[in-house]
């Protein structure tokens, strides 16, 4: 929005080693207007690799890394406090996740639990923590990467879908709470995207959206404050059909 022109803008990316997050960061830095970018994730060494790349791309911005566990409520709170000590970020992107193996989740409840924690609970708690910082100031944008998989539970990946469905409901509630405060919450739902997470799909010949395309949708959606963004846009139509299929038809489908 307007404050894209503000040189001192701070961007925080949680799960910054994800490919979509990296490409969002590249696009933000290419446009300019960002003074400081903080990359948050589990593995400091991997984060530093991303930071080096971004720093070469945009020497004028200060790119920092902050390693920590974003799956435990207490450590999320601690991380966000450390960030807040240097000022409340203007833009936060919550991008972490992992695509679980559905059959494995069905036989191994611990895998299912972990998948739901990483893909559902953790992004929701991160959003909550940042919303708490931004609301008193009445400004800021929180972007959360959800998934089209959250739109309807399907046998091929309903553990992941359930987690992403949680994120969607959470984002919806936050949007309701923050309506009119100046804080924006944007939920982006990418379709299958060409990333390491989906390399096995690509190897089977699936048509995947490019990560640049999805990143562009994230960056644009967050600049405009669009509440729900499908990336690419055609997924809005596809998922509208899938959501509205009568159960008798849906249950005959192998998806």
């Amino acid at each position, binding site marked *: 929005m307007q404050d894209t022109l503000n040189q001192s803008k701070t961007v925080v990316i949680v799960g910054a080693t994800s*490919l979509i997050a990296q490409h969002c960061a590249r696009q933000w830095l*290419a446009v300019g207007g960002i003074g400081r970018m903080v990359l948050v994730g589990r593995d400091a060494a*991997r984060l530093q*690799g*991303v930071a*080096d*790349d971004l720093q*070469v*791309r945009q*020497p004028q911005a200060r790119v920092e890394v902050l390693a920590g566990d974003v799956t435990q409520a207490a450590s999320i709170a601690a991380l966000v406090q450390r960030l807040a000590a240097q000022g409340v970020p203007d833009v936060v992107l919550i991008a972490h996740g992992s695509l679980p193996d559905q059959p494995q989740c069905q036989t191994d409840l611990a895998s299912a639990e972990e998948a739901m924690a990483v893909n559902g609970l953790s992004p929701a708690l991160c959003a909550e923590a940042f919303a708490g910082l931004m609301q008193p100031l009445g400004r800021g944008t929180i972007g959360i990467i959800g998934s089209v998989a959250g739109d309807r539970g399907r046998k091929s990946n309903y553990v992941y879908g359930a987690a992403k469905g949680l994120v969607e409901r959470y984002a919806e509630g936050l949007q309701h709470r923050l309506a009119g405060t100046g804080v924006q919450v944007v939920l982006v739902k990418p379709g299958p995207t060409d990333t*390491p997470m989906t*390399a096995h799909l*690509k*190897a*089977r*010949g699936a048509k995947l959206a490019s990560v640049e395309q999805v990143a562009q949708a994230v960056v644009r959606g967050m600049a405009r404050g669009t509440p729900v963004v499908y990336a690419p846009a055609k997924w809005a139509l596809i998922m509208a059909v899938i959501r509205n299929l009568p159960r008798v038809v849906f249950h005959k489908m192998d998806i």
Partner: protein
Amino acid sequence: MVAVRSWGRLSAEDHDLRVLSERPLTHLPRDPGQHGLAFGMGRSYGDVCLNPGGALWSMRGLDRFIAWDEATGELTCEGGMLLRDIQRSFAPRGWMLPVTPGTQLATVGGAIANDVHGKNHHVHGSFGDHVQELRLLRTDGTLIRCGPQLHPDWFAATVGGLGLTGVVTQATLRLRPVPSAWLDTETLPYGSLNEFFALADASEAGWEHTVSWIDCLSGGDPGRTRGIFLRANAAPDAPPGAQPPRDHQRTVPFAPPVSLVNRLSLRPFNAAYYHLNRRRAGRALQHYEPFSYPLDNLQEWNRIYGRRGFYQYQCVVPRPHGPDAVAALLHQITASGQGSFLGVLKTFGNRESVGLLSFPQPGVTLALDFPNLGERTLRLFEQLDAVVAEAGGRLYPAKDARMPRALFEAGYPRLAQFLPYRDPNIRSAMSLRLMGD
């Protein structure tokens, strides 16, 4: 398994596609006994980037910058980095790649493996001349650092080594300071081969970029071979108020059943192109992107050659034989009525390349696309091969899909010196064809 085509779209064969994304990369994934090959953007025309039935290591995920030294202009990046990303990140800061091919949609690793050249060979040589150091990962897990000073033998084998010595995981390149992202260009129509050579010679000292488009059907008589000569230098400033061109991507939507480049379209197109550019003759300021990469905004332009795909034929012949050989080549092409809109004729500078199998050498290079008409096209190539062999020239592996082994061996006398540096578990359709393994 995924069907993969190279840029010429001559075949679509199954490959075991493995996306490399681990950092640091310590091993190359493949099944026991399987051969692999690094794959970037698939912009090579023929079979140098294909490995049917084997593993193909997709490098596109490894596209990060690692370090940049403003004082020396040295940039370290991963092997899957796109040349376009380097140009777009650095041109606004006054630095550019000294050498790029006619597309910037190629990876750094691919540019090294094919030791690509550009329109400024007479000033800056080929891509390998600007590589300070590279890291080569072998299938046995060893990592070899090499450069012009460090293990120069490995370096000479890997630059232009067609991806057969290992995988280039990262490279340090020396960029070149430029006064602006704009070029001061001049367009000069010519009406005979003699005129072309006179222009090329006269431009070598004062112009950094030189290239010419040639009407491939006008070569019946060397005295009437027409074309458009382009030359350019870096412009000191951008024109007032000028903006870099916006990305305006178009896509050729599908491959028509027959080539759109055919006997009916070729002659009128070439005539129209010639006359249009003749009217544009003279000086102009142009941004580097449309000048250097005119086709990059037309995605999948290779589809215009139809479902059977196309070949590119690019040769270089030593300068003393240049005028006669080029005249003979054009004569054969005109007589056959085959050819394309995109004939390119240019001279290379008087410098040898770094790599044992590098293509550029002092002389004249002619490049032309040919729709795949099967036997007819291959027969024409045999005639062209004879001219190239006679003149002591060679063909460009990055563009090739069919050269006979004898021509390859004659054109690349340092092949025997190269072979010991091959990685035994890496091969391509081309290495099978031209090296028997």
